[in-house]
């Protein structure tokens, strides 16, 4: 794949129209107010039949499972994640939404991509039917909770959330923070350590599925943050939340939660490249136009070489990220996914480039670049998060280096 196909361009144009009509007019409420993104996202899903496609796909997989024909379920989720066409139909909405609302993509991605995917990859058939379908169609909103006040990059090492056996049940305690959709989630995937009185490093990692409103579960209000305002982020507090085994993902303590989380990391890292592409495309389009229109010293600023350098570098970033996205689509089409190392490299490069491009766009716009009206300031605030979540830049770097050095 070296360019978008005619059909993919049709999808892009249709989504673009939707964004113009349904999102742009509400940008102020979404990015500077308190309008949660979920109804708009549901409308997007309904309008383009993404919910029906997700349901079809889900039903096919469940039918297969019930017939006892289970090929690697994670692979199925990854390669079919985009609704055919190698995932391009999922990637294109991400790119187009990120031109205006990277936060919306985060809210959608965590619900559909992380929370539902975690259940689809490690849950029992009954658990998938109980929780995953509603998440995949966005009927319900999901949150995926691993980070804690004392552990982020070292998620498993520093984790202090616990599950204690009590008869046939478990009692859950702990707090999670920076949880996307945390304030509004209907379904929460909660990752913690099994407390058998042993040392912290030896404890098993377990994953539970919780519902909004369970006794002992508290979901905070949205936290105030630097950007990404169209994605509500919050804290979760659990005190003696009692759950049956039916909420233990996989209904067994022997499920490989660590590897489950790693698959999830790989998937969220590849999503970041598409997000970065949307931000870069928008910054570039806005910057080219501004360079032609804005006059200084009697000339359009686009005639100054220092401005030309900025534009050229933005175009280089756009081409590189686009090629990474194409590669990802091509791999998915072949039924394969990126290795964790490659996903890390892709995430690192895309996140850094998006940040650089967005800051250069602010610079190119001068004082207007610092003003909300010209949009690049929002994109610059939003781009920063790409270097932090889904594994910080530093964590990607050490992951890549470890794999190069074979250590």
């Amino acid at each position, binding site marked *: 794949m070296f360019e978008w196909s005619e*059909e993919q361009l*049709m*999808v892009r144009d249709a989504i673009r*129209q*939707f964004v113009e009509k349904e999102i742009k007019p509400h940008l102020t409420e979404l990015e500077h107010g308190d309008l949660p993104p979920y109804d708009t996202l549901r409308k997007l899903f309904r*309008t*383009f*039949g993404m919910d029906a496609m997700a349901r079809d796909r889900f039903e096919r997989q469940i039918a297969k499972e019930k017939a006892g024909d289970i090929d690697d379920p994670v692979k199925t989720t990854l390669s079919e994640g985009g*609704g055919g066409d190698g995932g391009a*139909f999922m990637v294109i909405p991400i790119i187009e939404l990120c031109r205006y609302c990277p936060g919306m993509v985060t809210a959608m991605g965590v619900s559909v991509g992380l929370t539902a995917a975690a259940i689809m990859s490690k849950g029992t058939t009954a658990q998938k039917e109980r929780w995953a379908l509603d998440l995949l169609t966005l009927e319900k909103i999901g949150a995926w909770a691993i980070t804690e006040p004392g552990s982020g990059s070292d998620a498993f090492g520093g984790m202090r959330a616990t599950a204690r056996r009590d008869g046939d049940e478990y009692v859950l305690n702990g707090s999670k923070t920076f949880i996307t959709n945390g304030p509004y989630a209907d379904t929460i995937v909660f990752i913690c350590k099994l407390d058998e009185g042993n040392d912290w490093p030896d404890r098993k990692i377990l994953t539970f599925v919780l519902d909004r409103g369970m006794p002992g579960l508290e979901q905070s209000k949205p936290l105030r943050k630097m950007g990404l305002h169209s994605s509500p982020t919050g804290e979760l507090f659990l005190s003696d939340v009692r759950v049956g085994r039916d909420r233990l993902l996989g209904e067994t303590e022997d499920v490989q939660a660590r590897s489950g989380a790693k698959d999830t990391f790989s998937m969220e890292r590849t999503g970041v490249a598409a997000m970065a592409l949307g931000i870069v495309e928008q910054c570039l389009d806005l910057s080219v136009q501004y360079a032609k229109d804005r006059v200084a010293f009697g000339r359009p600023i686009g005639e100054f070489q220092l401005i030309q350098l900025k534009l050229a570098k933005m175009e280089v970033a756009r081409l590189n990220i686009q090629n990474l996205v194409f590669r990802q689509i091509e791999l998915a089409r072949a039924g394969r996914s990126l290795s964790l190392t490659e996903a890390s490299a892709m995430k690192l490069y895309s996140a850094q480039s998006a940040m650089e491009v967005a800051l250069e766009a602010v610079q190119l716009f001068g004082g207007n670049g610092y003003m909300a009206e010209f949009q690049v300031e929002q994109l610059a605030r939003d781009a920063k998060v790409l270097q932090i979540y889904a594994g910080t830049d530093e964590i990607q770097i050490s992951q890549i280096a470890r794999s190069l050095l074979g250590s």
Partner: protein
Amino acid sequence: MNVVVCVKQIPDPATPGELDASTKTLRRSGSIILDDSDAYGVEMGLQLADKAGGGEVILVSMAPNNENKGLRTALAMGAAKALLISDEALAGSDALSTAKVLAKAIERADADLILTATESTDGYTGTIPAQVAELLGLPMVTFAKHIEVDGDRVKVQRQTEAGYDEVESPLPAVVSVTAGVVEPRYPSFKGIMAAKGKPVDELKVADLGLDAGQVGWAGARQEIADVSAAEERKAGEIVEDEGDGAERIVAFLEQLKVI
């Protein structure tokens, strides 16, 4: 119930249009899209076929160079198939020649109802719908803002300056719709994927039983004698408000007979 919808594929209005100096007509080489005005007809057709519980929407379009991008959009919305008439001999066609071609193509489709927009976005003569109806010998209702089919009759609310008229006609009929008639849907992803496999029959002038002399430059009864640039807008008159601003605006508008 089968509905034919005439759809025009036009140069993207978002990109600046260009005139060919020798023919004095619009250059149609750039990106071609479905005329927005026709998306309403397509949506109306889909809803009517759906309500009737059967039948399909068939698109008819005349365009240069076998251009079908606009048709793909309408097919992705849900139309079943398309007839596309494209022929070198059609270059220079005026509205009447276009209507002759469309009418001949529509005859092949066995339609209960023929929908068009009120006027196209690029040519906007607004003459095609009535010409097509006349050539087909069918009744015609214009400016529809609401359409219902009841057995073998069509009931139309026809937009007027004061409100609307209720009009009924036997089927088959030609009805031209306004932009208020329905809200066009976005093509779904599934629709976009399905569009590729839907039939687009490409027809030539001869296939329609028309003579090349009846269409194109040869058959045109209208000629573009001259094209000149629109006059630059003059600077407005600035009125300083000295407390009587409102009255002076009213007086100005009255003088123009706008109020």
